[in-house]
Structures are given as C-alpha cells and as structure tokens.
C-alpha cells in the first residue's frame, strides 16, 4: 500500500492529462483528492513531529474530506446498486408500456430522452445513498491526537510483528527437527537475542574507547 501511494499520483496525473469535455472537472478534482490523501500518508510516516507537521497533516485530511466526493460513485453499497437496478428496470417497463403512434423523428427523440432518464437515475441516487462512513476512514481523524499522546505512528506499525513471525517462527522451524518445536523455538530465539544484545553492548563499549577485545567480537 505504501509503495502504491508513491506512484499513484503520478500515474493518475498522466492518465488524466487529456480529459474529454465531460471529464474536465473530475480530472482536476481526482488528483487533488489523491494528492491530499497521499500527502497525509507520507506525513504519517514521519518519525518525529512538530506542531507544524501535525497542523499540515490535519490540513491535508481536511482537504481530502472536502474533495473525496469525487470518488463517491465508487463507494456504492450493494444495496444501493440493487435499488438502482430495480428502479431502472421499473422505468424501462413504464417506458415500454407507453406505446403511442408517433412520427419516426419524434420516436427517436423520445428514445433518446428515455435513455437519458435511465442514465440520470443513478446520478441522483448514488450521492444520496453512498457515503464514506466506515471505520478506517474515521480512524484517520484520530492520528493527530494519537501522535500528541503516544508519539509517532510508525512505532506502532504491525509490520515488525509480521517480520518477527518470519524470523522467529518460520526460519526457526526450518532449522529444527520438529521435536518439541515450541520449546526449541523459544530457547533458540532467546539465545540469539542474548548474543545480539551482548555484541551490541561490546561494540558500544569499544566505540566509547574501551578495550575492543577483537577475539570477543570476531564472531
């Protein structure tokens, strides 16, 4: 997701660089909205913050909320889509019922009007029924408070736990003979951790001018 954010705006800007007449306004609003969200996520990755950076983040989030309606049509719930389909079918049925003898030119115009009416139906219903009220969207508004209370966001990232799973469990399991594997894993990881900590202490000690003891560090 993070890597997607890095190239999303550029790709979108290139894709929308020559819009047709109907798409001029969406092609301006969509990159604006994406820009605000990407800026917000970039700033969420900062490892230290100042009141200015937090204010910037809030500004980006406000801007995103102001512009996000451009993507509303892609947030249509299944229920609304079914409702739209149903109403379109009903409209089609009603239009089919009104059979009157008219001149061919009038008939063509009426057909076009019917088609326009059918296409406009979702345009009215979707903004009324669609929304961005879901948990993940709401959580963005708490990022700033979280930073003020607990510190930067990346230290609470779940990626570390996911990586630890690979390093501690998967790699460990490959090395063992699967007899009493939990006990072996815990002991092995404990030992590795202790050795790493010991080496870090020794190198820190030697950096501060202590006797390096190359025989100890030469692992």
């Amino acid at each position, binding site marked *: 997701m993070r890597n997607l954010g890095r190239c999303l*705006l*550029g790709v979108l800007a290139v894709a929308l660089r020559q819009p047709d007449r109907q798409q001029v306004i969406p092609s301006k609003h969509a990159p604006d909205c994406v*820009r605000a969200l990407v*800026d917000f996520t970039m700033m969420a990755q900062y490892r230290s913050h100042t009141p200015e950076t937090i204010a910037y983040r809030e500004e980006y989030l406000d801007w995103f909320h102001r512009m996000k309606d451009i993507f509303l049509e892609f947030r249509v719930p299944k229920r609304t889509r079914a409702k739209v389909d149903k109403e379109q079918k009903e409209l089609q049925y009603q239009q089919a019922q009104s059979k009157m003898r008219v001149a061919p030119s009038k008939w063509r115009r009426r057909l076009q009007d019917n088609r326009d009416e059918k296409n406009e139906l979702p345009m009215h219903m979707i903004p009324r029924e669609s929304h961005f009220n879901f948990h993940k969207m709401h959580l963005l508004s708490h990022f700033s408070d979280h930073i003020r209370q607990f510190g930067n966001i990346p230290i609470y990232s779940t990626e570390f736990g996911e990586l630890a799973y690979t390093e501690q469990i998967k790699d460990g399991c490959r090395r063992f003979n699967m007899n009493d594997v939990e006990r072996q894993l815990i002991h092995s990881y404990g030992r590795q951790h202790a050795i790493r900590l010991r080496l870090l202490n020794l190198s820190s000690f030697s950096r501060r001018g202590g006797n390096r003891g190359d025989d100890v560090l030469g692992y």
Partner: protein
Amino acid sequence: MSDVLDFCKVFGISLDRICWELIRYSRHNLPTERRLTEELAILPLLAVELLTQLEILVLVFQETDVYDIHRARCTGTHGFRNQESRNDWLWVQAGSEAMYGALRGGLPGKLVALFKISDCRQDTVRRLAGVQMLRPVNSGRPSDIHSLVTVQLRDDAREFTLVDIGTILGMGYVIPEGDRRWLVNSLSDLRTFNELS
C-alpha cells in the same frame, strides 16, 4: 577499456563530442592547476575505466547516522541480466537551492555513462558520470492540479553532460508524461517529499 577513444567506440559517441564535454567539465569544475589537458592530441589517450554501478549513500530522513544505499546502474548499450539495457534516473545537484523553483537546485537526469578517467601527468583520477539532464518546465513550478513538477529534454540537443559523481544526490524517479516530457515523482521517499513538496 583503455582510453577515451575506446570509450567513444563502446558508446557510439563522436570523439569531438566527448572531448568537448571533458574540456567543458574541466573548465567549469576544476581549479586551473588541476584541469585536464585541452590538447586534442593527448586528451583521447587518457586512460578510462568504464563502471556499471554507482553506490550512493543517502541519509535516511530524520536520521543522523543511518544511510540508505542507492545503487544506480548504467549498462550503456549492453543488456542487464539477459534483458534490455539499464540506465537509471538520477537526481543531480545542478545549481544552488534558489534555482529551478520547487526542485531547489536539483535536476533529474538519465545516467548514460559512468567512468573513471586518469590523468597520469597530474597523477589524478576523476570519477565522472555522463548524464542526460532534463530541464524544468514552467521554471520548476508545480502544477496546480497534481502539484508535480514537469521536466523535459533540453532543447540544445546535448546528448549528455559530464558531472562529478559527488554531485549525484541519489536515484531519481520520473513518470513519462508524453513526448520528451516527464513528471518528477516527489512522493518516492520521505526525504524527497519533504524537500520538494
């Protein structure tokens, strides 16, 4: 590869072109007493060693002693790992911070050659990069719509510019926009984002 002549043959560049670029680089970047010779009989005979990879240390954003290593590759016309040639985009410090608007003195460029040139008379070795520099459109002002800066190939049709590898700041990321135009991706990493946005 042994000298500038061989270098020209490998890259398909005319000898005049490379000599002119070397002289230009020397005049603009080196102190008078350390300049390369400008004698066209001697310059092509300077020893050149071609390189294919440049490791650039880039300080991680908001860190003081942690570095990322950017590995820029330049295989010239040769293929890279059984595929087509690879000539990476770079970010080059081309001027002071006040220049090029939002780009703040940096310009993206495509690496076309990476080599080491030795001047045995002065006993010096210089590591240079041939970079196809781009120039900012609209004085480097970000677009009102997507806030990215557009760059394009220079009009002067110079195939490449020689720069010292010390002026290379890191890997550059550009997105092709159209004919000879690219968008500078300022969201590629936190440092670039912080500096260009």
